[in-house]
C-alpha cells in the first residue's frame, strides 16, 4: 500500500477544455492540485496531468504560445508520473493526420488518425475498455481494482496508433479495435475521460495518485 499523503499534482492549463472537473476529481481522490500554465509550477509538482479536448493543431499551437514544450520534455525525462487524457494523450505522439500532417510532441512514436468507416464520429459515449493481458506492472497499477471490460466515457474523433505495440495497455472496439490506453514507463495516456466516467474513472485517478506516492518512496 502506498502512504496516505496528498501529492501535489499539476494540471496543465493550455487553454483547451474545462479543467474544473479533472482538478476537483483529483482533489476528491486525494491529491493537492495546482492548475497552471507556468513551467515552474509543472516542474515542481510530484505528478502531472495533461488533459484537453478539441483540435490537435490548436493544442500544439497553444503549448507553443505558452512555451510549455520544453517543460513537458523535462518532466518526461525526469520520469515524473504523467497522465495524458484524451487530446493530452494524442499530443504525445509524433504526428496527427488532422488538418493534414500536424507535428506532435513526439514523446511516444506513432500517429493519430481519424475514425473511418461505418461509425458515427465523434465517438461519443460509454464504451468498454479491454485491458491488455500481458501488460507491464505499471499498467496493472493504473487499472488496480478496475474489472476488465469496464465502461468509460469517450468523446473524440481521432485515436492513437503507437508504433511499438507493446505500449498498448488497453483497447476499445469502435468500428474496429483502437488503442484506448498506453503506458510507457511513467507515462500513462488514456483516450477516455476518467473525470467523467463515474466511480471507476475516479478509481483510475486514485490509482495514478498511488503511482505518484510509490514513485516517491
Amino acid at each position, binding site marked *: 500500500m502506498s502512504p496516505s499523503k496528498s501529492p501535489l499534482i499539476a494540471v496543465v492549463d493550455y487553454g*483547451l*477544455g*474545462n479543467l*474544473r*472537473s479533472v482538478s*476537483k*476529481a483529483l482533489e476528491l481522490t486525494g491529491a493537492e492540485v495546482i492548475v497552471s500554465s507556468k513551467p515552474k509550477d509543472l516542474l515542481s509538482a510530484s505528478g502531472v496531468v495533461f488533459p484537453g*479536448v*478539441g*483540435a490537435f493543431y490548436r493544442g500544439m499551437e497553444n503549448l507553443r504560445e505558452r512555451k510549455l514544450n520544453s517543460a513537458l520534455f523535462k518532466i518526461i525525462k525526469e520520469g515524473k508520473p504523467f497522465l495524458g487524457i484524451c487530446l493530452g494523450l494524442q499530443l504525445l505522439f509524433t504526428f496527427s493526420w488532422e488538418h493534414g500532417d500536424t507535428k506532435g510532441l513526439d514523446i511516444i512514436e506513432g500517429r493519430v488518425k481519424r475514425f473511418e468507416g461505418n461509425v*458515427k*464520429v*465523434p*465517438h*461519443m*459515449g*460509454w*464504451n*468498454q475498455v479491454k485491458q491488455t493481458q500481458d501488460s507491464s506492472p505499471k499498467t496493472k497499477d493504473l487499472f488496480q481494482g478496475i474489472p476488465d471490460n469496464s*465502461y468509460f*466515457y469517450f*468523446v*473524440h*474523433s481521432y485515436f492513437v496508433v503507437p508504433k511499438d505495440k507493446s505500449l498498448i495497455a488497453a483497447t476499445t*472496439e*469502435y468500428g474496429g479495435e483502437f488503442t484506448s490506453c498506453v503506458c510507457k514507463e511513467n507515462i500513462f495516456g488514456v483516450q477516455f*475521460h476518467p*473525470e*467523467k*466516467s*463515474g*466511480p471507476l*474513472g*475516479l478509481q483510475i485517478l486514485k490509482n495514478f495518485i498511488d503511482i505518484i506516492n510509490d514513485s516517491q518512496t
Partner: protein
Amino acid sequence: MFSKRIIPCLDVKDGRVVKGINFVNLRDAGSPTEQAKVYSNENADELVFLDITASSDHRKTMLEVVKATAEQVFIPFTVGGGIRNIEDIRTLLHAGADKVSINTAAVENPKLVKDASWEFGSQCIVVAIDAKRKKSVTSNQNPEWEVYTYGGRKPTGIDVVEWAREVESLGAGEILLTSMDRDGTKEGYDLELTRSVSEAVNIPVIASGGVGKLEHLYDGLTLGKADAVLAASIFHYGEYSIKQTKQYLKDKGIPIRL
C-alpha cells in the same frame, strides 16, 4: 461494446429545478446539483440541464449551478437554453459544462455553430432542433418536418432533415432532436422523424419528446435509430428509475452500461 445513452433532462428556472422528483433523502430537492447527483449515482450516462430562466439577469444563477455540478458530478453534462453567442458558450464551458446546446441562435446565425466548433471543438457543440410535422404534406407522401425556434413559438420554414445536414457540415458534434408534436404527450418519440435525421447525418442523434413508458425508449433506439434517448418526466416523477430503465433495455438486447 459501445453503449446507447440514457439521458435525463432537468428543466432549471432561476437556479431551481422546475419539475421536481419525489426523491426522498434529498437535502434540497429543488437543487439541480443534488438531483444530478442522484441521477449520476443511478448510472445515468449523461445529463442535460435546460435553462428556462426568462430573464437574462438571472442567468448568473445557472452559472453557479454549472460550477457546483462540475465539482460534484463526474459524468458529462450539457447545458442549453438562451445561449446567444460565443461568449455565452465560453462562459458555460469554463464554468464546467461539457457541452452546450444551441437552438434559436444557431438558426439565426449558423456561423455561430461553425465558429464555436472551431473555437472549442465539435465535441462540445450540440445543436438542438425543435421539429414539427408539416401539415401540408399529404398522407401518401413522405412526411416532412419544419424547424421551430424560440421554444417552439416561431416557425422558420426550414426543413428539419436539411438543417440537420447543414449543422453537421458546420461542425456540430451532436443533434438533440425534439418532436414538438409528441412533446408532453407520453405517446412515444416521433420515430419517423428520429430515423430520418439519424440516417441523414453521421453525428450522434439524441431522441427527445414524448416518452411515456420504457418501450418508447426501446423504440427510439431501435426503430428510430437514435444513439441516445432523453426523457424528463418519466424520471422526474419517479415513474421509472434510471436503474430500472437500463435493466429493461439491457434485457431487450440493447447495449447498455449498467
